[in-house]
């Protein structure tokens, strides 16, 4: 089951560049939350702070606190443990090119030393079914490379790979921006199903997408969170002038 995320006074830097400033918000459990805003506004940096991927860049720095469920991820656990509980799907599909479809899905477990074959078979099948890819690949699981699939299939493979480690939260950084409209709508359908079991945070440039999949939406601008509210409110009656300008296409 998903858990809620509580972000308090989060600040992040790349070198001397203050990319996130005093972010405070509560992301509800088992819902999809969309983050929108123009390029470079800090929304990708924000999700990368939620699984401590931000600090994999040597010049990056973070202050503030992020609680996921009852865990403060910056003080209570190591980054690798956090990342197993908080799965991530990236902008460009990034399956491991040397691995089969099966091994890609199982990789999060096998690379951490889990080797029970029978359990793996079940997890791989379940994850691929959850990511709506099973029917398309079930005959080639161990024969084909993950890189041989189409872009949309690769992205669903990456979702399956993230689901296989049984996370509580799923972060998606513009998961459909490199995909065609058909693949995009498949990913969106998937988000609809997955949000019953996981807390989903999705960064998107596509405002229609945010409106379609998310209950809550946050608007980021210049490293600050301008407004966070129900998606309906953000898109129909935003409180902040800047949100309204962005939504109506006056900039960004």
């Amino acid at each position, binding site marked *: 089951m998903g858990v809620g995320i509580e972000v308090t006074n989060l600040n992040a830097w790349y070198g001397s560049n203050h990319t996130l400033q005093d972010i405070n918000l509560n992301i509800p459990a088992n819902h999809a939350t969309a983050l929108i805003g123009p390029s470079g506004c800090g929304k990708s940096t924000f999700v990368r702070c939620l699984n401590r991927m931000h600090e994999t860049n040597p010049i990056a720095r973070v202050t503030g606190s992020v609680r996921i469920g009852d865990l403060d991820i910056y003080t209570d656990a190591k980054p690798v443990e956090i*990342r197993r509980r908080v799965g991530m799907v990236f902008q460009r599909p990034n399956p491991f090119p040397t691995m089969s479809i099966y091994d890609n899905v199982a990789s999060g477990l096998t*690379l951490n030393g889990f080797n029970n074959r029978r359990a793996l078979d079940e997890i791989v099948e379940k994850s691929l079914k959850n990511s709506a890819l099973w029917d398309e690949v079930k005959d080639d699981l161990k024969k084909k490379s993950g890189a041989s699939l189409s872009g949309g299939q690769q992205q669903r493979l990456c979702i399956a790979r993230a689901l296989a480690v049984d996370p509580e939260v799923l972060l998606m950084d513009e998961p459909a921006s490199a995909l065609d409209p058909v693949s995009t709508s498949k990913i969106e359908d998937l988000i609809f199903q997955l949000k019953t079991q996981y807390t989903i945070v999705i960064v998107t440039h596509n405002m229609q997408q945010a409106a379609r999949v998310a209950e809550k939406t946050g608007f980021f601008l210049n490293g600050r969170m301008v407004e966070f509210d129900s998606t309906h409110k953000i898109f129909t009656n935003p409180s902040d002038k800047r949100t309204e300008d962005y939504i109506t296409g006056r900039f960004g």
Partner: protein
Amino acid sequence: MRAGKHNLRAQVRALTDHAATVLAVFATLVVVTPLVAIFIYLIYKGASSLNLAFFTQIPKPPGEVGGGMANAIVGSGVLLGIASLIGVPIGIGGGIFLAEFGRGTKLANAVRFTADVLNGVPSIVMGLAIYSLVVYQQKHFSAFSGGLALGIMMIPTITRTTEEMLLMVPHAVREAALGLGVPNWRSVLSITLKTASPGIITGCMLAFARVAGETAPLMFTAFGNSNWSMNPNEAIAALPLQIYVYAISPYDEWHRMAWAGALVLIVLIVLAVSLVRYVTSRGVLKGAS
């Protein structure tokens, strides 16, 4: 008027296109011709001296007909085996350090510089260095010292190719592993290294093929041996050494044997490289890049 101008431009383009193609084909021929010429000449000079005895017998004293280079073929195998055992792990380890763990550190810059200098050390100097460090201390020539000299010569090539191949692995692939909660060391060994392995194997094969034909580093280390020996602690025969000794001898029979030895050396290197490529390419999945 306008149409005529366009027509002329199109013709110039087509001509440039043809010229570039012709130049490229010509350049390819220039590169391939010496290789093919050497190979044909070796077959012409050496193939007639090849027989079963060449591969099964040890050299006969001058004046006696027959004999072979079996001990040198095996000896080269032993030397290259020792060299690979030393050069491949150290070389790959160095490359991993440069690309993954030491990036941007002073130590990494020092290691990279040392590797480049080592690559430029003349092979005879390598032989002399190992002579004074190992052979002179032990008071006897040995296959081990020869393998060590060759192994050290393999390191810089392997280190630098490993580094470059690892750096070519897309950042997205590393992020995927880290995002799954895989520790960095595990991600480097199981994901990055594996993704880069075709290029790294090519680097190892280049280094192997280069030292397989080296003579100078073996003169004061492996020394050569006209009898059977597979003992790493004794002087051992090697194909390049044997070719050298036979080629500068005054006997026509030995000259023919030297040509045959050179042919065998080239064919064996090609076979070894192809075998490694074949073995490592099996199990590659459909569509894997």
